[in-house]
């Protein structure tokens, strides 16, 4: 009962949120919640690698940023009318751009994953971080697309005839994407692939012994995970109508990991819950003091030392 009740309550709250925020006179809360949902999507994407595949990636900011840049670059070309590399013209349609973002970040994840998955454990953590830094520096040096200033575009991408300027509309669009993504996650993870992945996480050698190509499955999980992060980046680019290398700063990767663990890695809704908790906490601490990180840091340490399993598992829910 509980298993269905909480998600439905949460969904109802989200559906009503823009009205509530307008009523209590702080429309800025709509954007805050949109941000939470987008980062929740990114954390949930990371969770496919982390929670279900057991791959601790400290480099997901790269895919998140690549997804965002796909939007920024495509939109800029659509506005200027110049084709990208003289070949493909840009687009201003959200659906097209999101597809591009997902495909491009998936390709990046395929390349980085193929190299990084040759290692495991701590080395995997360090290597994903190093590759993410490499992508970060690449975009920092990309003067044609703003370098460290980033790219700004005036209008959000178009979706049907919706008024995307309106923050509440964009809130619902984001919610739609989040729900679709979570649906895909649930499908994937209950499929044969998801079960095999769980087996690999628990005992890779045993899975190899029964004839599973574990490298390929982990690689697929990493790619899907990168695609989800790219989707989140695409939405974030649209929310702020701005992309910059800051999006792929390595601390973003760290925060995504925190969201997963805080909410409960290995659960479907946990990472989203974790994103809401972490961003909510950050926003609250930020109203108290500019130096909120000095409080957040020790809180994180305490969280790791004191309680394990995450928010989604409080109250005895099974992983």
């Amino acid at each position, binding site marked *: 009962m509980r298993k269905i009740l909480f998600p439905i309550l949460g969904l109802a709250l989200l559906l009503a949120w823009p009205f509530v925020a307008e009523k209590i006179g702080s429309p800025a809360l709509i954007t805050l919640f949109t941000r939470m949902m987008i980062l929740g999507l990114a954390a949930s994407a990371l969770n496919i690698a982390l929670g279900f595949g057991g791959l*601790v990636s400290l480099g997901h900011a790269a895919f998140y940023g690549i997804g965002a840049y796909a939007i920024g670059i495509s939109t800029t070309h659509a506005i200027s009318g110049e084709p990208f590399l003289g070949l493909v013209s840009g687009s201003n349609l959200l659906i097209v751009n999101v597809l591009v973002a997902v495909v491009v970040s998936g390709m990046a994840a395929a390349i980085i994953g193929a190299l990084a998955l040759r290692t495991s454990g701590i080395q995997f953590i360090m290597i994903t971080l*190093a590759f993410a830094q490499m992508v970060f520096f690449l975009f920092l040096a990309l*003067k044609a697309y703003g370098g460290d200033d980033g790219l700004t575009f005036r209008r959000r991408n178009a979706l049907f005839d919706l008024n995307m300027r309106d923050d509440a509309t964009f809130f619902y669009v984001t919610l739609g994407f989040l729900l679709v993504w979570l649906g895909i996650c649930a499908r994937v993870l209950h499929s044969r692939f998801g079960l095999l992945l769980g087996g690999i996480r628990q005992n890779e050698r045993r899975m190899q012994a029964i004839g599973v190509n574990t490298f390929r499955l982990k690689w697929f999980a990493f790619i899907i995970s990168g695609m989800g992060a790219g989707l989140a980046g695409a939405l974030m680019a649209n929310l702020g109508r701005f992309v910059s290398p800051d999006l792929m700063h390595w601390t973003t990767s760290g925060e995504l990991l925190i969201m997963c*663990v805080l909410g409960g890695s290995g659960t479907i809704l946990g990472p989203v819950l974790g994103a809401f908790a972490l961003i909510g906490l950050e926003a609250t601490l930020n109203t108290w003091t500019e130096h909120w990180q000095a409080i957040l840091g*020790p809180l*994180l340490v305490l969280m790791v030392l004191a309680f394990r399993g995450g928010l989604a598992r409080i109250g005895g829910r099974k992983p």
Partner: protein
Amino acid sequence: MTLVLEQLLNGVQLGVMLFLLAAGLTLVFGIMGVINLAHGSLYMVGAYAAALAAKMTGSFLLAIPAGLAAAALTGMAVEYLVIRHLYARDHLDQVLATFGLILFFNQMIILLFGRQPIFVQIPPFLSGAIDLGLFPYPIYRLCIIAAGLLSAAALYFLIQRTRLGMLVRAGATHREMVQALGVDIRLLYTIVFGLGALLAGFAGLMAGPLLSVQVGMGEQILIMTFVVVVIGGLGSVAGAFWGALLVGLVDTSLRAFLPQIMRGFMAGSEADALASGISAMGVYLLMALVLLIKPKGLFPGHA
């Protein structure tokens, strides 16, 4: 030719700095199995403590022990309060807890010193350049190279030739056995962590006069250090040494020579932008290459 030699020396200088950091990181990993993201924070603490001491006393010689002591004590406190509880945990918990430590240290430094970078003067008796026969070279940088190489030699001696080093090596491979023989392994771990922190602080205080001392300086070099450790092989101090020199040389030469090479092919400004991008990515490409050939690094440790 002289330019090439000069840049090679610069590369070695960066290399020994990276080694000082990588040695601590790889020791802590090799012996305790802990990944410590906050290692860069100890470097930062060393740099700030030395800068503060130099400002208050006006003496660089007094700044050295101040930086070393601050980094080592901070390191041992961190080990005692946090890292000690992470030995039995998985790497994810270690990453998260040490990430929290980074946030804490960065904000505390901002609270104490503000966001403005601090510039430290090269001490007068080390400023100026010395003629190496072919070209003049800054004395300070030569001193860093000498100090780094001396530290490496001392570390080698400590690990290979002393009782403490023997316990460290034994603790890395046969933890329970060492414990069963009556060695206080917790104290040993605290000492090793403090030693790593001391080396990081040493790198930090030497870097002070070359780079500006600022918040975030630790993370920048930490990620380079990761590359070094991965290339050299996790847990291997010798690997950290050769890996650090390799990364230092590759990074410095790419930054120094690539722009000119690129200008041979394309317009000046474009070449500069592209060259700076590629040289920033260079060491990461090097790491990818090494991993393709030797997934465990050049000198795989026992860990």
